[in-house]
């Protein structure tokens, strides 16, 4: 198997493997899924089809990075910034005034 996309595919696998180390559901879980996803497509021969899969892999990389960022951002926001929102939420819950709350959230 010495196709022009070989290196590209291996690099993609490595990048995804590396990203999977921090996966919230566990690295093992992710690495198993990753391997089966690649094994499933091992018999692909059509270059256009292979390119499509590589593009999908790149997209998944981006999605995972975005997910990690949002997880971290949310954790930070919850820890350091949400006290005001919480008291706001509490007062709105007590007065039952939901319209203002929605508007306050932008």
């Amino acid at each position, binding site marked *: 198997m010495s196709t022009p996309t070989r290196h590209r595919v291996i*690099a993609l696998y*490595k*990048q995804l493997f*590396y*990203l999977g180390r921090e996966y*919230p559901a566990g690295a093992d879980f992710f690495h198993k899924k990753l391997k089966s996803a690649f094994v499933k497509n091992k018999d692909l021969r059509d270059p256009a089809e292979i390119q499509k899969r590589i593009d999908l892999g790149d997209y998944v990389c981006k999605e995972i*990075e975005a997910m*990690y*960022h949002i*997880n*971290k*951002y949310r*954790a*930070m*926001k919850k*820890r*350091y*910034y949400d006290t005001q929102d919480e008291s706001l939420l509490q007062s709105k819950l007590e007065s039952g005034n939901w319209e203002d709350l929605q508007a306050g959230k932008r």
Partner: protein
Amino acid sequence: MSNNLRILVATKRVIDYAVKIRVNAAGTAVETANVKHSMNPFDEIGTEQAIQIKEGLEKAKTGKAEVVVVSCGPAKVQETLRTALAMGADRAIHVESNDELQPLAVAKVLKAIVEKEKPDLVILGKQAIDDDSNQTGQMLAGLLNWPQATFASKVELGEKAMTVTREVDGGVETIKTALPAILTTDLRLNTPRYASLPNIMKAKKKPLAKLTVAELGVDVKPRLEILKVAEPAKRQGGKMVESVDDLVDKLKNEAKVL
């Protein structure tokens, strides 16, 4: 506009944000052995900001910037420095110390580094997520007698000056300051990039200078003593009630709210 900037970014290696913190048996500190560590999220934002400034200057062809990252602590902080290098910093300085470093000590170390490196801008995270001191940037500004722009949520660089939007209680404040200056980052400043695998490999070849606290001649003796570290009170579990009468009875006699 022509700019040749040197940007110093201070980073701290802290317990990863996702790890559940445990207090040690003696109740004097949190457990750090065999716990995942990573770069302080606010310092990540600071590193990203420095790299964005550098890339912005290169793209506009109006100047160059060198991004220098610095971290103090035991040998393991080099991992954090490598992460910053993989993100795009040019070189790193590791100030080795196996002692506990408090914000004042770190500010003094950074002052010594600033005097050596002569940067135009020093970027720090507004606080570390382990001790939540939120002091190092301010102390460094005080020691150097430099202007400071803390809690930045937007930074625009101009000729020998910068305009910073700061997050303050109940809104934002825009200030203009001359360079050199201290900048501390807030959460919404930018989205830190995730270092790609090839960049991590390249980062291993980037220069990393090693210094010791003694070489810099800085007194890092702790000024504060931690008396006790305690976990927050455990949440008590809920109770199932059989009937309305049971509920009313419990509210009256146990919760005493009726």
